[in-house]
Each structure stands twice: as C-alpha cells, then as structure tokens.
C-alpha cells in the first residue's frame, strides 16, 4: 500500500538532503567543517567541504537554511565562522523528506527481508 505525500517543496539532491539532516542534528553548532565531519561520520567517506558549501548555498537561496556569522576568532585572523541554521520552512521540508523516504522504503525493506528468509 502506498500513501501519497504532498511535496510542494523543491526537488533536493541527495547531498542537499543530507546537509539538511546534518543541520538538524548539529543545531547551533553547524558550520562547514562540522557538517562535513558529520557527513563523513555517517557515510564513512571523506566529504568535500566545497560540496557542503554548494549545498548550503542552495538551501539558503531556497529559504531552508540561513547563514549567520559568529563572533570573531583569533585563530581565524579575526574572522568569524559562518554558521548555518535550519529555518522553520527547512524543518518542514526535512520532515516531508523524511516521511517521503519512509513511505518509499517501507514496502521495499519488508520485501527484501521476506526474500532473505
């Protein structure tokens, strides 16, 4: 049985969805390196920081995430980290993506588990 999920949200790439998830997990601690680390930890593969920024930039344009500069840091020569936060709309889209994924996976996971037996 399938359930239709309304998706008014834009089409996101796999990397963008993963970055969205990482933003949700990291909360206020999310910035380039932390997000890349988070993704590396989950996927087990080294993540390109530039790819993270490309995804963040698009999420920012779509209004799903927002950039904020932290306080200046001496180890960065007086420059601040660029933090990213999930917007309410971002949270909404993430929820939908989650539901969509769950809906999509439900049948298949049970199917495979049956055939495995």
């Amino acid at each position: 049985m399938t359930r239709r999920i309304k998706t008014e949200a834009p089409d996101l790439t796999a990397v963008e969805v993963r970055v969205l998830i990482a933003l949700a997990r990291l909360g206020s601690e999310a910035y380039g390196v932390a997000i890349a680390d988070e993704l590396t930890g989950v996927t087990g593969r080294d993540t390109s920081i530039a790819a993270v920024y490309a995804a963040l930039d698009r999420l920012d344009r779509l209004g799903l995430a927002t950039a904020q500069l932290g306080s200046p840091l001496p180890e960065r020569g007086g420059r601040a980290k660029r933090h990213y936060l999930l917007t309410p709309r971002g949270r909404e889209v993430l929820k939908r993506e989650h539901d969509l994924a769950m809906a999509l996976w439900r049948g298949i996971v049970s199917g495979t588990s049956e055939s495995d037996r």
Partner: protein
Amino acid sequence: MTPPRWSRRLLEILTRADLRDALLDDLDEAFARQVAARGRARARRWYRRQCVRSVPSLMALRRQSIASSDAPGLLARIRVATGPAIRHAFRRLRATPGFTTAAVATLGLALAANLATFALVDAVLIHPLPYADADRLVDVGHWTPGLGQARAGQAHGGWTFYRRENRTFTSMAVYNQNMVNLTGGGVAAERVNISMVSPDFFPTLGVAPLHGRVWGGDDEGPHAPLVVVLSYQLWTRRYGGDPAIVGQAIEVNGLPRQVAAVMPAGFAFPTPDVELWMREGFDPNETRFGDLAYGSVGRLKPGVTVAQAEADLNALASRLPEQFSDVRQWSRNGAPLRARVEPLKAVVVGDMSRSLLVALGAAALMLILSGANVANLFLIRSERRLRDTGICRALGASPWALFLTNLAESSLVAAGGGAFAAVLVPAALRLLSVRAAQFLPRVDETHLGARSWIWLGLLMVSASLVLAAVAHWRSRHARAHDVGRGLSASRSRVAMRHTLAAVQVALALALLVGAGLLGRSFWNLITEPLGFESARIETFETDLPFRGYSKFADVARFYQTMLERVRALPGVEAAGAVSDLPLSGYTIKRYLNSDVVIDRPGQSPDEVRGVRWKLATPGYFETVRIPIVRGHWFSPGDRFDASIIPIVVSQSFARRLGGDAIGRRLHHVDDPRWCTVVGIVGNVRDDDVRSDMSDAVYVPVLDQTFSNPFNPSTMQVAIRVSGRPEAIVPDIRAIVSSIDSKVPVADVQTLDAIVARARARDAFIASLVGMTAALAVLVGMVGLYATFAYTVSLRRHELSIRVALGATIARLAADVARPALVLVGAGLLCGGLMAWLASRAIGSLLFGVGTHDGLTFVLAAVLVGGVSLVAIAGSLRRLRFVNAVQALQPE
C-alpha cells in the same frame, strides 16, 4: 603549518567572493586537524584531494550566483552564454581521448618551442639592459680603415680628448680587464677577473651600489687613492656577505686595497665574469694617445641619436693628429682613424641575435606545421560530425552558434596546449640558462615575463581561431539533406585535407634542410683541424705575485721547477706552460695581439700588425702536440748565444716572412732587440674555432731569455696524462703550494672543456634547430599517416564494391597511393623551394657549407620522402580490412 600553496591559491581563485573566507578558513581548520591526526604529508595529500574534488562544486556555486542575480554584468553574461558551449565541448573532447591527446600534445610542443625561444629573444634582444635609461648607453671605440680593423677600442688619450671636447655625451668612461690574485683573510688564494675603470664608470652606467659609495668623477688624477668595488657574488662567496667589509682593506695582488662599495646582485660589466672593479688612476692631462686597448661606454645626452654622437666624435677624431703625435700609427694609406659609436646593447648581445632569430623562425615554422596537423585532425572530426551539424542547422541553429561550438573545442585544445607549454617551459629555461650561460649573453636574465605570456596568449588565441575556422569552413554548407548522404564524395574537402598534408611535408623538409645545414656546419667545425690535440690534457692557470718574481729569470725558474716535478708524477706524459692556450679566450683578454718589425736585408724594415706574441716553456709543443715543422724548439737547460734571442714562428707567419724563414730577424714593436727565427711550428686556431689560423711568434721561457713587453708571470699550464686528467689536480695543487703557497692554482679545466666551450654556441643552435626539425618530421609524418588512413576508411564502401567486382588489393593500393605520392612530391617541391629561399637567413651561421648545399637538400628530401612513404604504406595497411561483404552494408 601551511596547506599546499598552489592548491590554496587555486581554491582562492575559484571560490565565489562571499564564501571565500569562510570556506578557506574551514579548510585551514580541517587541515590543521588532519596534520595533528595523520601527519604533515598525508594532510597535504588530503588538502590536494579536497582541492581537486572542490572544482565542480565551486563552479556550480558560481553558476548559481549568475543565474539568480538580477542584473548580471557583462562578464557574467558572457559566462552564461559560453558556459554551456564550453561544457559541451569539454564533454565531447573527453569522449575522444585519442584525438584530444594528439591535438593537445602536438600544439603544446609547438607552443612550448615558441614560448621558450620568445622568452630568450625577449631577454636577450628586446629587454633593455639592466641600467638606468639604458637606451642612452653606447659603446664608443674606433675603426682603422687603413689597417683593416673594423672594431678597435678606445685609447687613453682619445678618451680624455673626446670627453673634454664632445657636445653629445653627458659622460664617458673607459675600462679594461685583467685578472688578479686575492689573498689574505685566512682563506685560500683566489684568482678573479677584475676591471680597471675610469672614475666616471659607475655614474655613466647609472648603477647604485648595494653598500658603500662608488667614486664619482671628482676623484680624478693619478694620485687618487686606489680603492676597489666588490661584486655581489664575490662579496657573498669570499667575505660572507658582511656589510662591514666596506671601508676595510683586502689584499689584491699582495697589496692592500680599501673596499669602497659592494654592487647589487646581477651587476656584471663589461663581462659576466667580472667580480672586482678598481679605479685606475688616469691622468686627465695625458699627452700621448696610446694603444686602443680600452673598452669605453658613454651616456648620450637626452634626445641625441647614435648617428649624431658618431658624427660629433668623428669631427673630433679628425683633430686627433693635432693633439697627439703618436696617433699616426693608426692610420695608413691616407686613411685616418675613425670613431665608432654603437648602442651598448648591440655590442653586449653581439652576433647571437641572428642565432636567436633563426631559432625563433624555426619555432614559428614548427607552430605552423603543428597547426596544419591539428587543423587536419579538426577537419576530419568535423566531417565525421557532418550529419549532426546538418541536423542542428535543420533544427534552426545559427551559423554563429555552430562556429561557437567549434571555437569552444579549439579553445580548449589551445588552452590545453598552452598549459602544457606553461609547465614545460620554465623548467627548460632553467636548464638552458645554466647550460648556455657561457656563450649566450644575458641568458641569466631570462624569465617568463608579461611579454612572454602575452605572446603565448596571442599564439593560443590565433591557433584556436584558425582551427575553429577550418572546422567551421568544412561544416558551413551542411544541410539537412546531408543526413541521408554518404561521406565519400566531395572534392573540396579532400583538396583541403591534402593541402594541409602537403604543407606539413613542405615545412618538415624546410626545417630539416635548415637543421641539416647547421648540422653539417657543426660537423665541419668539429672535424676542422685545430692545429693541436686536446685529449687527456688538464690545464690550470698560475699568476706569480710581483714580490719575489720581479725578474724574468725568477719566473722562468718557478715554471721550470714546477714542470719538472709535474713531469715526475706517475701517469704524466708531458707538461708545458704557455701565456695563453688556444681557444681559452685569454688571447683577447690580455691584448697579446701585437706588431712586429721585420728586418729586410738591404731595405727598410717592414712593420706587420696583429701577430700573436706568445711565451712558452720547453715541453709545451709536445704536450698539446703542435708539430715542429722545421728547426727546433728548446729543452730545459738549453743555453744559447746571448747575442741572439731565439724564437719560433707559426707556419702561416713564416710564409709571410717569405723565402726561408729560418735565420730571419724581427723584433717586437715596443722592444728594439732583434730576435732570430730558429724554428717553425704548425698553425693553431687561437681566437675561435671559425677563425683562421693565426700568425704567431713563440718566445721561449728559459731562465736566460730576455725580458719582453709582456708579463710572463701569468701562464696557463697544460699537462698530458695517460689516465683521467681530473685525477691529477690534487697532486698539482700540492706541488704548486710546496713551491710557493702564495701562488694560486686557478681556472682548472681540461683542454677538452675549453674546446667544447669554444664550440658550444654552434652546438647550441645546431641542436636547437635539429630538435625542432626532428619533431617536425615526426609530427608531419604522423599527420600524413592520419590523413591517408582516414581517406582509406572514408572510401571503404567504394573500395569494397570494387573488391566485390573483382579488383585486387594491390590495384586498390595503387589507386589510393597515387594521389598520396603526388601530394608528397608537391610538398617536397614546395619545401625545397622554401628552404632554398630561407637558407640565406642562416648563411652567416654556417661554416664550410654553402646555403644551397646540394647534398644536404637531397639527403633531407630523401629522408622526408622516405618517411612519407613509410607513413603512406602504413595507412595502406588499412586496406586489409576492406572486403566484399562491406559492399552489402549501408554506408
């Protein structure tokens, strides 16, 4: 700990401005963590990997910003317009790696050859000399129409007179060159090149010292204190780069001299090996004109031309006889001494300019050839895509859009070639500046400056435009109905391909003829007898200090003792010393050209100019194997009648003496004592490998010899050994220092090395053009092969029908080969004609071979023709795959 510099720089360039700081700081932070966790090397690898993997993301970021911005700038709009074309072209090139590699490598090699030669030409010929207002600096000298000397120097009296009376110069300086011993300071004795200069030398050149103060024009006169100026190299090498050396005294030829200044790095005038300058105490009120033994450099007043300056000085030169009585020696047959003014740069660069321009010409031909080759590849490619193009046009693509597609592809290929050149050339130039420093003036100034990069850019842009035009020309008439048509017809495109192939054959032949002429000329230089044998000979130079060696006999005794001990060493076959070894360059430095007065019984003595006056010890001729033709040379301990001074003359000079030279008398122009010819020896090439054998007089250095105008204390020693010449050097040093520890052993080198250096310039140009030609033949022949292999593959359908109708493969091969042979013949004819016309340009570089040397032309034509046949035969092998079954398949 910093990340890899170039990777970081690349990221900096690629990253969009608003994200640049954040991204780079993040990467730095992650890099620091990688260093802590995995070590420096792995962290750097990680960073480079990040950099490479970032490129697509960073490009995507830039595109996003352009696409979303409201009012994109012109650049952004161009990027949006061309971006898809470039991406498309990139993908298509990636799909055909064979084509792309061949095109990029061919173009890249040619671009590299052009960039490298242009950088050389730029540094040597275009770039001004490294002095303030260098275009106002001129070389001042004379020429002596009556004596046939085209380039003579300046004389002391001439300098003071010109300097006082001229109206076109702001200043004028004189200099000459010598070598001195540096001793003291607890460091080993050293022999360095010194330039003795007039007080206004440095102000004229407009060079400021690094430390201290150089003297000005006011410190004049013969009694001004004798001070020296150090070169940067000498200062760092011998005095540890200590600025406190200024004001202190150093020991020059055993005498204390105060250091006035240190010059900046890179300053070396008049020759690159000068390391010390000493002010000579010239008398501004000199009454003698003197010898033309000095170099002179002048600075013109602003706006004055070289011709005006020369006219000004010539007006003064005509007044010289009123001023100086001894100036008449420079005029003969009513032709007086004339002044000569030339731009300083032309004098510094000398005759290398033609060699460099020839190299640049060869590189340009190579580029045209490679261009023709790649154009052919593009043509073939565009034919393969004719149907696609026809469909595109039918769907409404404008010709401009189609041209853009081709341009994007050719630009990428040109950019790849340019990048290839940009990577290859700096390394090649570094190698070159080390190898060519000996004979190529200013080569150490070679670097890839803005002009070189602009040159490369221009070549790249022209190459991509021409290639795009060729490809576009082919597809401009593509129509939708081509879609259904076969590919094997069309005369025009066959003609275009064949013309390009013929151009390659022609250019390959022209280059090969040039290389062949230069190669034969070089071979002639190598095989031309020098008059002596250089194998297994070690040489070095000694200079005896004045104290302790003021008498000729003391000097002779030193050399006698040293040579005796050297000869006793195991493995030494012979040893001797001479004032200047042939081809060593010392002849010119020491002004040993001199005049000789010949006694003619019953008539007034005859004066002969330009005879080499040399000093040689017993054993010298045996060591370098100069044959003794008649009479005899001396053995150690020989005594002779004190009333005669015995000398030996060269064969060519003996001929000038006329009749039987043995027993004739002559004397040096400055020393009235008569010398008697007792022997005749073989001729030797002294100045350079191209010059004629020189007239020479050898005076023996025996402890009984007369003192003569030349200082016998500086000699070059030659030692012939049975083994490796270098192995004997420690023993030599030990012997010299055991006789006198104050005598330096300098300029240690084998005679082979001296000869090789004398030939190096010819070897350089011959190998440069030779390599270009070899590359040209290779590229040209690969192009020829590709053209005909493609022709065969295009005609496969037609050929297979003929096979089905009963034609033999041999018949087909003859049909395919016929136009190919015609084309090669046409190419050879054009190439031969081109070489015939162009070989004049290298005429002055050739030695012993004419510019229209038949043998070279024939051999080059046979070689190019032969290789062409091989290439054509190779392409015919494709006929094996033609069979009757293919006739049934659709084209």
